[in-house]
């Protein structure tokens, strides 16, 4: 069906003469710019266009595809770098050079590349939606399961084996339905699952403050809000690099171009600590920088989560980083305001909260239609204006997510990184994961951690007194608390993302570090009680040497040396 443009106002175009369904994708203008129907009113429909509309005139033709915005799912997603509507940036560069032009379409999956397909079912078998019919080795470590689209079922009449392109038929069902390795799925619709579980396994990130104090579960949701310059992006990138999930989907939503360039440059060179293979082999990157069209930014988050769901359905643990969800919310606001909708709080549309919760609800630990257990962990960065957490995006996000990592500008200014405020952050998974920690880390891990949290809490109260009277006025045991907390902050919580060793800290190392600090605390306490002066306890050399063990390649060796020395030094003090 053909129609024509009635009105153009920035990314919002009104069309008439066709009768589209909501969220149909249409091509507008002579150049065929891609857009999505977001409102229908009488014989007119409003379209948000994913590309620049300069020079587009009323009267130009409009074509309806009749399909809603969909992504292509199949082998070849990994290692790809897409824009917000799944156009591979590399192909765009080949087609239009270093600057992004418009009216260029590009397939999400490479149509030329050939994959080795090994069937796991035979003809005569009956299959249902979501069931695996074969596998493709997508990268060295990821086996890509080819699944029947969720809405399809039947008896297999023919199944092939061998090398195919993604759009070639590999399976025919009774009744003539042909299946290829590629399926399309509308991004705004969650892919169906059999059921959801309560998440019970932690996501190990190698970041001490996250794993140690505020863990997130695989299948859980977390938010990282923080003012600019507090280290949101570095934290997100650390998570993308080191999380122990099988697949990482990283969405750069409305962020800096140079930062994306950095990610694009760095990820292929980094190694997965688990497999030793390039990190890129398990990663899908979506880059829609702040100056790329705003409607595509709105779509980028959905594109990302749909890809994540697809891998989850294969039984993989997926983590998805959205940097930043505030930019996504702003894109919604911008489009809403162009539609002249009645605004809610701070100009955001009234459906902001609904959209945010719909998105985070797509996370979860699930049993998929093919009875595989997979999960999606969603970690969203939030960029609150002025660092004020009372603004709508932060508040609506906090109502949904279970983990809150609050970044603090003050900590960042004193170069305390990651600058996550341990007093305001929280995790609602600590209880649910306690059993896992006791079993897999150490039986005394949870009490150790709780004790550390307790001390840090005490410190903040003591600091208020110190601000008034100075630290010398405190009783000695409280001075010791301050010292232990300094050690906790500097030796344990601070972690250097740019240091080759310290950037990733395995759980065992986290445990030993915390244990070492706790040991000093116990010995110092005992010494204090037996009358040894505070000055001597503080001047223990091994205590300061503890500061540098986290940077050592041979961590255990270095720690042993320091701890032996500590034993000797305390013994030399006498008392105990």
């Amino acid at each position: 069906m053909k129609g024509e443009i009635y009105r153009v106002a920035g990314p919002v175009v009104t069309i008439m003469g066709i009768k589209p369904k909501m969220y149909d994708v249409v091509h507008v203008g002579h150049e065929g710019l891609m857009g999505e129907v977001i409102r229908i009113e009488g014989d007119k429909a409003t379209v948000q266009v994913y590309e620049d509309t300069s020079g587009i005139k009323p009267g130009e033709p409009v074509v309806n595809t009749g399909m809603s915005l969909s992504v292509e799912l199949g082998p070849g997603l990994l290692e790809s770098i897409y824009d917000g509507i799944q156009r591979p940036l590399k192909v765009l560069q080949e087609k239009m050079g270093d600057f992004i032009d418009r009216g260029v379409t590009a397939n999400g999956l490479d149509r030329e590349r050939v994959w080795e397909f090994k069937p796991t079912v035979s003809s005569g078998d009956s299959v249902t939606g979501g069931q695996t019919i074969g596998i493709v080795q997508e990268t060295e470590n990821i086996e890509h399961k080819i699944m029947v689209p969720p809405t399809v079922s039947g008896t297999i009449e023919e199944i092939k084996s061998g090398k195919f392109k993604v759009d070639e038929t590999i399976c025919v069902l009774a009744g003539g339905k042909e299946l290829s390795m590629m399926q399309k799925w509308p991004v705004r619709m969650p892919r169906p699952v059999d059921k959801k579980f309560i998440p019970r396994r932690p996501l190990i990130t190698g970041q001490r403050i996250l794993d140690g104090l505020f863990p997130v579960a695989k299948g859980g949701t977390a938010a990282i809000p923080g003012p600019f310059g507090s280290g949101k992006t570095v934290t997100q990138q650390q998570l993308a690099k080191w999380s122990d999930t099988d697949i990482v989907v990283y969405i750069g939503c409305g962020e800096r171009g140079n930062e994306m360039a950095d990610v694009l440059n760095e990820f292929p060179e980094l190694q997965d600590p688990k497999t030793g293979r390039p990190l890129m082999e398990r990663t899908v990157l979506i880059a829609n920088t702040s100056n790329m069209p705003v409607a595509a930014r709105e779509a980028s988050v959905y594109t990302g989560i749909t890809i994540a769901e697809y891998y989850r359905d294969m039984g993989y643990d997926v983590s998805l980083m959205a940097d930043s969800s505030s930019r996504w919310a702003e894109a919604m606001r911008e489009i809403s305001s162009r539609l002249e909708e009645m605004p809610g709080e701070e100009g955001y549309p009234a459906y902001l909260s609904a959209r945010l919760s719909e998105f985070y609800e797509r996370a979860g630990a699930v049993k998929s239609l093919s009875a595989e257990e997979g999960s999606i962990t969603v970690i969203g960065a939030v960029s609150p204006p002025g660092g004020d957490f009372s603004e709508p995006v932060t508040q609506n996000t906090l109502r949904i997510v279970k983990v809150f990592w609050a970044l603090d500008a003050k900590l960042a200014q004193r170069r305390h990184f990651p600058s996550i405020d341990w007093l305001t952050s929280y995790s609602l998974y600590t209880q649910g994961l306690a059993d896992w920690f006791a079993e897999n880390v150490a039986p005394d891990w949870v009490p150790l951690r709780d004790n550390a949290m307790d001390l840090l809490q005490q410190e903040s109260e003591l600091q208020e007194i110190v601000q008034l009277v100075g630290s010398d006025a405190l009783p000695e045991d409280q001075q010791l608390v301050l010292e232990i907390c300094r050690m906790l902050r500097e030796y344990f919580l601070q972690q250097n993302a740019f240091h080759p060793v310290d950037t990733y800290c395995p759980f065992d190392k986290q445990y030993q570090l915390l244990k070492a600090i706790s040991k000093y605390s116990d010995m110092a306490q005992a010494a204090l009680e037996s009358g040894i002066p505070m000055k001597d306890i503080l001047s223990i050399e091994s205590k300061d040497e503890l500061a540098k063990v986290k940077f050592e390649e041979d961590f255990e060796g270095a720690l042993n040396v320091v701890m032996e020395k500590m034993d000797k030094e305390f013994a030399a003090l006498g008392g105990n």
Partner: protein
Amino acid sequence: MTKEYKTITEISGPLIFLEKTEPVGYGELVHINLPDGTTKRGQVLDTSSDVVAVQVFEGTGGLNEESGVVFSGETIKLPVSKDMLGRILSGAGEPLDGGPRIVPEDRIDVNGASMNPYSRMPPEDFIQTGISTIDGTNTLVRGQKLPIFSGSGLPHNEIALQIARQSKVPGSTEDFAVVFAAMGITNEEAQYFMEDFEKTGALERAVVFLNLADDPAVERIITPRMALTAAEYLAYEHDMHVLVILTDITNYCEALRQMGAAREEVPGRRGYPGYMYTDLASLYERAGVIKGRKGSVTQFSILTMPGDDITHPIPDLSGYITEGQIVVSRELHMKGIYPPINVLPSLSRLMNSGIGDGKTRDDHKAVSDQMYAGYAEGRDLRGLVAIVGKEALSERDQKILEFADLFEDRFVRQGRDEDRSIEDTLQVGWDILSELPESLLTRIDNKYIEKYHPAHKSN
């Protein structure tokens, strides 16, 4: 194409509305012929088969329903040429210096296109500005966008000029140019800049766009886009390294708000339009380096924070887009320190990729981190001293307190013409750090202490 319409039905603020036109393209350039013979220019903001809205750059004064409107059929383009160097143009790209019109080698859409992130080169070439607080602790690299957050009455212009004068990549002889865009600054300020450019000979390698305080506000929306288009042209077509100075972003945002109000848009925070983030991004993001091309665009914008408030929407949204910020402090300025840059809230996000062995020096990061930590603690202690007195401090704390003073006095403070090399900057850093006991230098690796610490070096 050249059809003239006399169908204006409404004039409201900077906007005019026309009816019964042929199809008009969104964003098209418009010429408006006034009854008195003058011509104004505008741009299509909203177009439909029934009515077209046009924003007029030079303001709607003198316009009436008799005025004729001609649609050019194309978006706003800037004629560009290498001969632009040394020229002074208006905020709309017309010559102001009495010279001839630019003979264009090309005409480029001023809105630019967004750079494919895949084509970007991560910036990593160190630019030496000769200012210690920038080079030492908030390093600028080629392709970065680093604004100065300042306040009214602070010497941000002097700092910007000093940077424009002194910036260089050590050991490099590549072509260098400055594109200067003034948006709504006063005539006096503009003269100050021009005088300095002329005096130092910088004008020869500069392109200047001037939109002054009494020029139409709407024109301000185009001025930075003109400047960035010229910069991109020089960088990517003529392999030059271009430093773009935009001043003042706050005036630009005010113009944006004014336009939004005229269009009766739903306002966002403090009345600024909801799309201000995207709009600012379309300026700031035009900095960068492209793989396989020699030139680069580096942005140094000046932004005065209303009420010195860093959480005001303008600095706030800017900070989320730019790669850091240099914060000018009223407190330091009052103490008589020039340049009054407060390093604590300042940040260069790309610093880590521009420093270190082979770029600046191996100890650079450690020295910078140590100074940051010391200065931050020292400033906190000042608050404590105000309550309990200096005597109540431990010996260690007193040393740190003194360090904060030394830092301001020797590291931050420098002459307006003092061009410190990076070695000089790091030397000053070591000189003041050596006043601290060595045991407090926990952020510096022992190997650097042995190599650079004055106490060890002399041995």
